[in-house]
């Protein structure tokens, strides 16, 4: 099988907040499978700010879950402008899961909210968090044909979700996913 139609959802400049959906994808199509290939975070805060830790999950909801609460839509970008348009995919941030079952929490990471000033002395964690390879938080199945990526069937949803009451920092969150026929 050759490369499958692939998309990137980039949610830029997200500020964490208590129990906030930072980035997510919902599949509303019975004819398509969405597979989450990789999820990454990049520190985008470059102005001095309080440095506290937020706690980010990769969460999966299933069994006819609805993405309610008025999520803010962000349009995913096709890796190839020749890709067929996505069918009934909701992507963006905010809102909440309604109904269904879950969450299944696949991954959690403690993420700093401090600025990446990248001073000329010792590197800080916030500086490390600007490097793309170090911010990949979820990638089952990527580069390994023996592993399954996370599958979103019809009526399933995945989030990057922040739990604690943290209101500082800026981060870009990216989700790389493929769109295939069932």
């Amino acid at each position: 099988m050759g490369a499958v139609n692939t998309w990137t959802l980039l949610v830029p400049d997200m500020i964490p907040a208590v129990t906030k959906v930072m980035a997510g994808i919902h599949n509303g199509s019975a004819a398509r499978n969405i597979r989450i290939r990789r999820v990454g975070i990049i520190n985008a805060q470059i102005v001095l700010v309080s440095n506290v830790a937020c706690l980010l999950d990769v969460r999966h909801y299933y069994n006819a879950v609805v993405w309610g609460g008025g999520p803010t839509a962000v349009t995913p970008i096709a890796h190839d402008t020749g890709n067929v348009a996505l069918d009934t995919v909701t992507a963006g941030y905010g809102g909440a899961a309604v109904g269904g079952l879950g969450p299944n929490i696949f991954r959690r990471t403690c993420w700093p909210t401090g600025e990446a000033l990248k001073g000329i002395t010792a590197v800080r964690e916030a500086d490390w968090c600007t490097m793309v390879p170090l911010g990949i938080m979820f990638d089952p199945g990527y580069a390994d044909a023996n592993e399954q990526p996370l599958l979103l069937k019809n009526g399933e949803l995945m989030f990057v979700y922040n739990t604690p009451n943290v209101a500082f920092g800026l981060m870009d969150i990216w989700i790389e996913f493929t769109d295939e026929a069932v």
Partner: protein
Amino acid sequence: MSINMWTLNITGHLLTSASIVAGILNRDYTNSHVFRIWRVGLINAQTGGGISTSAISIQLERYVGASWRNPTVIGPISVDTKDTDTSALISGHGGTRVDGTQSVFRRITWFSTCASHSSTPYAAAKDWETFIPLGILWDSGFNDANVQPLTVRPGEMYDLYQTTAGQIVDAWIEFTDETS
């Protein structure tokens, strides 16, 4: 079966405000060439001292239907010297992009002051940015045949674009040239 592969290697690009750090434009309107971008990376190339420090923003973006005026043309390098035809693309840095529809795939913060590689126990972020693996900012499809790389169709341009001024950086784009 491997496909004709090239590397665009931009060395010593001075990060002036709002400039194209590295770019590829597919200008083949015979539909005989489709380029696929497999990896994109940055490397801190500033070695001189006394350079002011700042965090700058660089983004990987696509423009559909854009033209590229007055770039500094840098030819890509083939990994196999039998591959010589680069007439289907414009590659390089600088210049001005005109018109087109933008999509931003990734944004990063980059620190462009001199990599001192000092003997003190602590490395700063600018020193870590000299390590090639840490500077890879895009690699979709690399090592995974299920994932599409970025596809550069005729009339499309992909570039690394900085939005704030900094110092000197090397940038590289690894891509293949295919017929469809």
